[in-house]
């Protein structure tokens, strides 16, 4: 009981693992109960999502463990490497040619952050190395193409766990490392992330694939979270690291809601192209409201980023960086617009061809949707719940034992 209480204590790994658990539950229900294909395919999707959630939970548990486990980057790299196996299985379980064709790309992209993390001892635990590993893990722009490929290839549930696992495992590391960066490099980081997030977000509304729009949204939020961590406290009015972690967690908590509601429609239509979804929900009132509510709720709970960017833009303490922050804000607006327009098209758009309407929201779906909304809102209203593992803060790193000496 004491161990469990310690686990659930705030701050700690508990809140992050709770977000992951919610995402895994949504994925298992979506793929296992409502997924397309025979029982075996649905079961394999659900098991793959469960395995990925479990592997990511272990990685989180390890990161928060006391020394020496929590301070050994090689051991944590092992945990990151193990995420590759369930991703391979998820890709393999995807029917048709898309799964096998993309599985190599997914497995390589999931291995990349693990490889980078394993080399951090060689680089003297400098924050740049750890930041690189974290950015690749959370698929921050411009390192997000594999995430978009996953959106096309995986099921909606598998994509949900993949995105959320990436954020909860790599997000705290990315934010902690960004905070520890020297000033000169941090400036370039802010400008680079701002431009990348801006371009990705502004391109999102033109994306025809519904799940790719969601993946682009997730990627933009991840990039903005790291950017927020380097804004001056005087500009944003609160601790930037805490703000970044809170935004990251809220965005991650919104993803299961978004993917569950949209994923049900994608599963029913069997395609994710928005052209096939136009006006599909015009005759199903409750489901249409659920889709719109999920899109708006996801946007609202991720509102910390644009508010902070706006505050920084209006702040006198920043110079030419404000231009870049403006680009980042435009990216957030573009990504949000992509979600809103997609939902609107599904509800009010023109039907491409007459056909059977989507079934109305069932009781279980409604219950789960409400639960996901509640989880997303909770993540927003408890910002102090979100912290980074002590081993990844600069103070702990300085006192951590180094790798064994050869001499």
């Amino acid at each position: 009981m004491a161990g469990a209480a310690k686990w659930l204590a705030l701050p700690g790994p508990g809140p992050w693992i709770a977000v992951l658990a919610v995402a895994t539950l949504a994925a298992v229900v979506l793929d296992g109960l409502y997924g397309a294909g025979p029982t075996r395919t649905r079961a394999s999707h659900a098991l793959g999502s469960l395995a990925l959630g479990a592997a990511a939970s272990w990685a989180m548990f390890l990161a928060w463990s006391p020394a020496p486990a929590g301070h050994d980057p090689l051991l944590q790299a092992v945990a990151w490497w193990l995420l590759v196996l369930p991703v391979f299985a998820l890709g393999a379980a995807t029917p048709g040619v898309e799964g096998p064709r993309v599985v190599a790309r997914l497995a390589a992209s999931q291995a990349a952050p693990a490889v980078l993390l394993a080399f951090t001892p060689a680089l003297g635990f400098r924050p740049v190395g750890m930041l690189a590993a974290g950015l690749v893990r959370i698929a921050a722009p411009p390192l997000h193409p594999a995430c978009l490929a996953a959106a096309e290839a995986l099921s909606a549930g598998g994509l949900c766990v993949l995105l959320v696992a990436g954020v909860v495992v790599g997000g705290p590391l990315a934010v902690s490392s960004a905070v520890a960066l020297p000033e000169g490099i941090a400036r370039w980081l802010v400008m680079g992330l701002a431009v990348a997030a801006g371009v990705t977000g502004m391109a999102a509304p033109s994306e025809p694939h519904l799940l790719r729009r969601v993946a682009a949204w997730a990627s933009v939020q991840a990039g903005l979270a790291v950017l927020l961590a380097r804004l001056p406290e005087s500009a944003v009015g609160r601790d930037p690291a805490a703000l970044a972690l809170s935004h990251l967690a809220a965005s991650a908590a919104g993803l299961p809601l978004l993917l569950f509601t949209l994923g049900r429609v994608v599963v029913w239509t069997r395609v994710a192209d928005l052209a096939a979804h136009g006006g599909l929900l015009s005759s199903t009132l409750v489901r249409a409201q659920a889709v719109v509510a999920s899109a708006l709720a996801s946007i609202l709970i991720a509102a910390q980023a644009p508010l902070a960017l706006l505050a920084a833009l209006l702040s006198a303490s920043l110079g030419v960086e404000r231009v870049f922050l403006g680009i980042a804000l435009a990216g957030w607006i573009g990504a949000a617009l992509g979600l809103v327009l997609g939902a609107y098209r599904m509800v009010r758009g023109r039907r491409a061809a007459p056909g059977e309407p989507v079934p109305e929201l069932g009781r279980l779906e409604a219950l789960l949707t409400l639960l996901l909304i509640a989880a997303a809102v909770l993540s927003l209203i408890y910002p102090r719940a979100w912290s980074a593992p002590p081993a990844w803060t600069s103070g702990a790193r300085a006192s951590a034992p180094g790798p064994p000496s050869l001499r």
Partner: protein
Amino acid sequence: MSGTSRRGFAIRVGLVSWAALSLLAASTLTGIAPRLVFDGQMALDLPAFLLIALVAAGSAVSALMAAASSAPRATPLILATLAALTWALAACSLDLASAAVLWGAGWILAAAAMGRAGGPERLEAAVKVQGLGAASALILVLGAALASGLAGSTHLLEAGYQLAARPDSHVLALASARVVLVGIALAAAWVPFHFWAPDALGAGPRPVALVFALAAPLAASLALARVLLALDPTLQLLQVNWRGGLFAFAALTGAVGGSVALVQRDAARLTAYLTVVQCAELFPALVAEPGEGRLWMRAAIAHGVALAPAWLALAAWSEASGEATDWNALSGRGRRVPLQAFLWVAALALAAGFPGGVRFLARPEMARAAPDPWLWALLLALSTLLQWAAVVRLARVLFLQGAADWTGASAPPSRGARAWPAWIVVALAIAFEIWFALAAWRPLFSGARDFGLLPGG
């Protein structure tokens, strides 16, 4: 020509081993070997013994694998072992001319090993090995000649001293060093001098390929380490950025080898190219500190322990089980023989750096020991990812591609049940690698003792 029986194979290998040990004992007792050492012609230090031990272990494991195949052939393996031992002696030789002769002899034996294995592909590989090997030996002779002309001696230590003491021949001094480097690079299969490796390793008998994959790069890197130590004063005087040059070699080898490995449609050639990439991972040990043998020994052991299971698995798949290795034949084959396919993929994954393998621990350590850890970390990370992508590609072909059902007459026959000794060897090799990585890697050669590369360095 049919292969010999297992008993005949064992008798031949046993006889040759007994003859080799007798020769070694005789040369020691009669004083020939000690005289070479004390006269300064050979450097039989701990790295040299380690190299010979790794070659011997590789040959022993290859013999075990060859014995497990359906038609074991002793002659190619014996010739390959002799070639490897000759290369090892060349790496221990402190006389450039003698080393060139030994390298040349080794290449002749290697070509003979390939040719004796039979088959048009192997004959073609033998011609390539012979040609490039002769080129390597001739280039080393040229290097020895330049050194002799400049320094008045082909002895490595004397030449290094004399070249530093004669600042009026900078261009030729640099040229002689570069010529020797090219000769060694040909032996080590570093890009762009790697052309013998894909054919010799990919088309040759697997036991022979394992011996070559172990011996050639290790011997060449040890030889280069001694050359760098001897020429270090000269290179410092001439302000040559030799570390940058070696980084360029490593980057080319890793990037080109890894990229080409990704587009291969045959598992044997894929493994050959992965071996070429892994040869580049010996470079950090060379650039760290001239004369430091400890890093080279750790890198050499990591190379050997990681490489062996991959080639053993390929041998078990292609020779013991009689399965083809091209993509068309492999497509979906893993679903029919899942345990064997899993062992194969696991062996390659550990060699690529998956946790549990010795390379997972060795790579960050090598990057940290190099003077520019950032560059080497980036290079080794890229190498890891390219190798990992190639392994995943193989796993995809084995398990995810092909027809869903393999039943009845449409499924090609497999000797899987009779090849179980070979797969047991593979499983043991994988288990050994994991044990070694977890238990034996960290304390290996640790401590304050100095492991220098040259006598009286």
